[in-house]
């Protein structure tokens, strides 16, 4: 008998099952995640969160008395591969529920086919505003924070800051432009001056020219919409040019991988965080303790956000008593979940979860190898979540 990785995964997930149902009755959840390629680091985090959650659930008797089985496939963040893999999961394995897609362009390719597949997609980290806006489909749900929400948290914090003039640098594709638009609109509404922005192609290695432009702009703060290798390269080089001494660097999301790769260069960075492990509420304390016991370290941002999505899926399935789309969809709409970020509500109007926004600052802490993000501001859900189907705010 062929022992594929899928078979091994099944055995692993079901092995933790403390119940009496057979493996054939398992609840199958599709995990089409980028494990190789430049986004592999994020994919690894998201998968780990799903495995952790599945293990927890199975140890307590599973969902609806049935074991949870994760079907993991590598998409290498190529949308064509993602569509093919999900199609296979649906047609060959009878999967009706997917999560853990890494890149927004993968998500955008999958979303139009959800109706044809009769499958529900619960996002773990896809932040593109359009997924709950113009590209919304009934089978898509977003428990995580969107890009506009991250920007919103930062601009709310800026309202109390004495800084007046801002410049921006973003990656030259959809996310970079969308986030910069939201920032510009929000900054202006906060009475600040937006001096302009520059966009760098994905894969830019040398940011010296961009650093010069930022310096010349006369801004007091610079908003960064960068991710992955580009983010690390920019932060490292900005430090070498001592840019942070003149200009406060702000960013949409502060994640541990970027901090670890840029080290001291990210100290002083202020930005949004989708999930700070230091949150003080009972659900998060339990989660962090269990995570530490299992893996010997604190959970990172993408792990926490994906875990929240898994918990939302769980709550929906338990309420619906089924994973069929026709029953799960109405169960998820309007659902209130006690999450690691506190109580969150999955809105019925656009399937976005209303939740608080956090602003963090990266600081050096004695005794820790890398700098850490520290929460400096928290904003309640109603201030951070945009109006239904929109990506712009009105207050």
């Amino acid at each position, binding site marked *: 008998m062929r022992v594929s*990785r899928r078979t091994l995964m099944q055995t692993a997930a079901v092995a933790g099952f403390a119940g009496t149902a057979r493996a054939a009755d398992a609840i199958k959840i599709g995990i089409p995640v980028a494990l190789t390629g430049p986004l592999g680091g994020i994919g690894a985090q998201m998968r780990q969160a799903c495995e952790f959650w599945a293990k927890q659930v199975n140890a307590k008797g599973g969902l609806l008395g049935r074991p949870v089985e994760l079907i993991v496939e590598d998409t290498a963040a190529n949308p*064509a591969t993602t569509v093919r893999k999900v199609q296979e999961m649906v047609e060959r394995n009878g999967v009706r529920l997917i999560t853990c897609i890494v890149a927004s362009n993968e998500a*955008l390719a999958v979303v139009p086919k959800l109706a044809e597949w009769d499958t529900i997609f619960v996002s773990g980290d896809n932040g593109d505003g359009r997924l709950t806006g113009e590209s919304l489909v009934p089978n898509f749900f977003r428990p995580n924070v969107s890009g506009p929400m991250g920007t919103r948290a930062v601009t709310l914090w800026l309202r109390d800051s004495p800084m007046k003039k801002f410049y921006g640098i973003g990656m030259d594709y959809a996310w970079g432009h969308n986030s910069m638009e939201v920032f510009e609109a929000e900054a202006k509404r906060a009475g600040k001056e937006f001096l302009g922005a520059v966009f760098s192609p994905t894969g830019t290695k040398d940011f010296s020219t961009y650093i010069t432009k930022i310096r010349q702009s006369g801004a007091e703060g610079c908003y960064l919409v960068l991710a992955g290798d580009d983010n690390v390269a920019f932060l490292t080089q900005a430090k070498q040019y001592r840019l942070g001494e003149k200009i406060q660097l702000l960013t949409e999301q502060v994640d541990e991988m970027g901090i670890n790769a840029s080290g001291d260069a990210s100290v002083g960075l202020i930005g949004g965080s989708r999930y700070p492990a230091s949150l003080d509420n009972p659900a998060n304390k339990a989660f962090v303790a269990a995570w530490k016991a299992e893996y010997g370290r604190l959970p990172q941002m993408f792990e926490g956000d994906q875990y929240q999505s898994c918990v939302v899926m769980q709550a929906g399935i338990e309420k619906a008593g089924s994973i069929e789309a026709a029953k799960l969809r109405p169960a998820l709409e309007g659902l209130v979940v006690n999450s690691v970020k506190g109580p969150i509500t999955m809105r019925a109007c656009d399937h976005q979860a209303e939740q608080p926004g956090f602003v963090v600052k990266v600081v050096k802490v004695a005794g820790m190898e890398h700098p850490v993000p520290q929460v400096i501001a928290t904003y309640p859900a109603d201030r951070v979540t945009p109006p239904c189907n929109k990506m712009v705010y009105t207050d």
Partner: protein
Amino acid sequence: MRAFVCVAIVLAMAPLGLPLFAMTLLTEALILGLLAMSLDLMVGYTRLISFGHAAAYGLGAYASGYLLLHTSLPLPFAVLSASVLAGVVAIGVAWVCTLAKGVSFSMLTLAFAQLLYAVAFKWTSVTGASDGLAGIPRTAGPFGMTVLQTKNGYYYLVLVCLLGAYAFCRSLVGSPFGAVLRGIRENEAKTLSLGYNTRLYKIAVVAVSFALGGLAGALYSPFAGFANTELLFWLFSGQVLIMVIVGGQGTLVGPILGAAFFMLLEHVLSEYTESWALFFGLIFIGFVMFAPQGIWGLLTRRARA
């Protein structure tokens, strides 16, 4: 001829026997096979090594996707128009690229393909930039035919296109035109001295190759429902070239097998291990060392032995 009819019949019966997902894989394999075969016209028959064939695929995919999203053109016409567009664009590209020979030619194809990638990446209104075009519908055929909107119906469309293109290519390489191409492949200087305008022939074969590659792309975007910049990336061009070489260049059939093999291998390997790229690379190296004539060479050698 007999073999061709047999294969056609077998493939036509596939939907009766194969499970649902295998049909999905087969449809995509046939599309990629068409793409690889189109490149073989350039690589195998004329020794024009192109590092930019993804441009043909991407052009076809975006063109048909755009037409299906924004006009109510019936699907077969959208696909055909996209293919013609790719061929026409290729004439211009080939005109410039054939100013050079050998490695320089290959590098020019790379430059053009990357330029197209850059344009597609920035031209938001037409290509959707980095997100590409999503939700591409399969519009009803002419006279309100809906058969193409079903899974099996679409499979037959792809099959007919592939078989038709194959028959066309076969007759092309067997014709006097094909003889000149082979002459260019073996010894361009001599062919030139015989009085043939080799440059015109090269431009022609690139245009045909692009038109067929564009046809493949045009069939892909309604099949997958989207078109994005990954389809234009140079890495994909390299993969198509590999498909041709692994399959057996200069045989038309070999590259089709090569494409199917490549796709299946990637799919199956990635199920078994995260390190699938490692085995993928080792298999290619193995092919070069031990099976230089490619898959088709292996098959025909065994048949003869």
